């Protein structure tokens, strides 16, 4: 049972009740509060095999970009557009510009898909992709698993791009095969043939492009109040005095004031109150395995509250069958029911004013994780390492132990 419903959150209960009524009235299948498949839409869509290459997918949530990992055009829309889609099955769109994000090379130990996307955002800024759709290409992208690809595409919107896509390949097809809503039998072969025709032609041109050297990437962390304000975890907080553009300078000053950080300050060693491992960016089984690999045989520091929140009930069951829940609980972390939890602080999981959190979620906006709370975004590895030491930590120092 959803605790917020039991505790009498009347508004939430009314909202969910209305969703249930509407779905019943119009014959829409709902994976509701008591469904064993319940979870964050961007986790369960792919999990059920509903997300497939070549589809156009819309949803009233900006992280719909996640589904682009399958070579679908997937983007978030608002309530009015949801209404329009439900009424007509179509949506008027203008052709967006294209933006190639090429990531070449091999990620080093301790560097994850989350660090790739945080590195991109730190280079192009939070509005850098506005009006564009990203296509992620290059050897480093090809070697990512589907779950890692979803982590990257998920945060396309944080760069201002409504959608981010990756060409489907054998990794994609293997992931989809056998899933509940995947095509079966002869239909599978028909689909596969079509899916193989989807990738962008070699030599295609883009309206914008950027290349990232995967070999040079380090674990990343944000220091400010938008996801584009990121640095390598070993770097110092930037100094507004060195920013020439006046509006960018005042934005940085405003962020550092909110975060109570000093220019030039090192984040390594900074004391943290909460670690949140979850959200549609990093709550899939591979994310939990990464976190567990660090927490296994270690203890969460006494000053830190650590929440581990699977993205779906299916992820939860899988994690429990692998014994990850015991790893987390023995380390002193909370093992929770699936959902968005402290990513958006609507269910009671929230930061207290002034608290610092390292989170694997996607937004570090002011108050996002609770009014007055301060968020550092990072990978599940960095988050788990920080939980262990109680301070912001370069996970690579624990991997070498």
């Amino acid at each position, binding site marked *: 049972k959803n605790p917020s419903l039991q505790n009498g*959150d009347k*508004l*939430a209960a*009314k*909202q969910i009740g*209305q969703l249930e009524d509407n779905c019943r009235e119009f014959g829409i299948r709902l994976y509701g509060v008591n469904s064993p498949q319940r979870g964050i839409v961007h986790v369960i869509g792919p999990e059920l095999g509903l997300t497939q290459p070549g589809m156009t997918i819309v949803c*009233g*949530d*900006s992280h719909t970009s996640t589904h682009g990992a399958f070579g679908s055009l997937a*983007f*978030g*829309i*608002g*309530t*009015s*557009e949801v*209404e*329009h889609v439900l*009424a*007509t*099955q179509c949506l*008027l769109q*203008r052709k*967006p510009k294209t933006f190639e994000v090429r990531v070449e090379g091999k990620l080093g130990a301790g560097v994850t898909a989350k660090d790739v996307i945080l590195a991109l955002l730190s280079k192009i800024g*939070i*509005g850098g992709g*506005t*009006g564009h759709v990203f296509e992620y290409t290059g050897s480093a992208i090809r070697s990512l698993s589907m779950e890692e690809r979803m982590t990257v595409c998920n945060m396309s*919107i944080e760069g*201002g791009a*409504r959608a981010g896509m990756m060409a489907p390949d054998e990794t994609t097809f293997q992931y989809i095969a056998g899933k509940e809503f995947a095509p079966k039998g002869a239909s599978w072969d028909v689909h596969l043939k079509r899916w193989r025709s989807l990738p962008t032609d070699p030599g295609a041109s883009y309206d914008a492009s950027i290349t990232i050297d995967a070999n040079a990437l380090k674990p990343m962390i944000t220091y400010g109040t*938008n996801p584009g304000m990121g640095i390598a975890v070993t770097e110092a907080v930037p100094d507004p005095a060195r920013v020439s553009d006046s*509006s*960018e300078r*005042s*934005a940085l000053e*405003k962020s550092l004031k909110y975060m109570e950080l000093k220019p030039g300050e090192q984040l390594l060693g900074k004391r943290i109150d909460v670690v949140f491992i979850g959200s549609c960016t990093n709550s899939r089984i591979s994310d939990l395995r990464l976190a567990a690999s660090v927490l296994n045989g270690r203890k969460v520091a006494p000053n830190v509250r650590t929440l581990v929140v699977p993205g779906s009930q299916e992820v939860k069951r899988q994690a429990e069958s692998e014994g990850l829940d015991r790893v987390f609980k023995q380390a002193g972390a909370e093992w929770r029911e699936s959902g968005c939890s402290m990513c*958006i*602080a*609507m269910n009671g999981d929230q930061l207290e*004013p002034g608290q610092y959190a390292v989170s694997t979620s996607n*937004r570090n*906006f*002011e*108050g*996002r994780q609770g*009014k*007055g709370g301060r968020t550092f975004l990072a990978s599940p590895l960095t988050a788990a390492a920080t939980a262990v030491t109680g301070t912001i930590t370069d996970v690579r120092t624990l991997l070498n132990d």
Partner: protein
Amino acid sequence: MNHFPTIVSRIAPILVNDIDTDQIIPARFLKVTDKAGLGANLFSDWRFHADGSPKAEFVLNQPQYRGAAILLAGNNFGCGSSREHAPWALVGYGFRAVISTSFADIFRSNALKNALLPVVVDPSVHRKLSELVLNDPAAEIVVDLESQTVQMPDGVSVRFPIDGFAKSCLLNGTDELGYLLRFQKQIEEYEQLHFGSGGIAL
């Protein structure tokens, strides 16, 4: 929806870049099933102290900007979540237009569907408007959708871009569904022809 009017108003300046929708309307106010009343929570965490009292230094709490229907904001306004509650809250508060150098894609689309005009201007025009309002908070400007212009007190007028279909919907006081429903007969004929009496085959 009503026909979109010509706006003649003072400007409220919130000259911050990258104002995200979590600031415009924090998530804790989203547990509603009705858009009415969201204006009271617009910019809630910037506008109010923890005890609910207004923060005197925040623009919307300063008397000289009260009643302004035009918001002047920094670059990349409306980034972040797709919540349509953001334009609902802005309109609920009384804004009819937001002027910035750029808007996040989803916000722009949501705004246009709620009779909130996203007005994109060059950085130089933006600077001029900032100076205007900081020097004379009582100065009024005109935002005219029909001619797609912002008209300043010194007589200077600058054009702004807007999607043609969205413009005609706003000027005619209709929305996309309303527009489509005008063709209901043709749609039904088409469906009958292609899908038979069972409606659309999905």
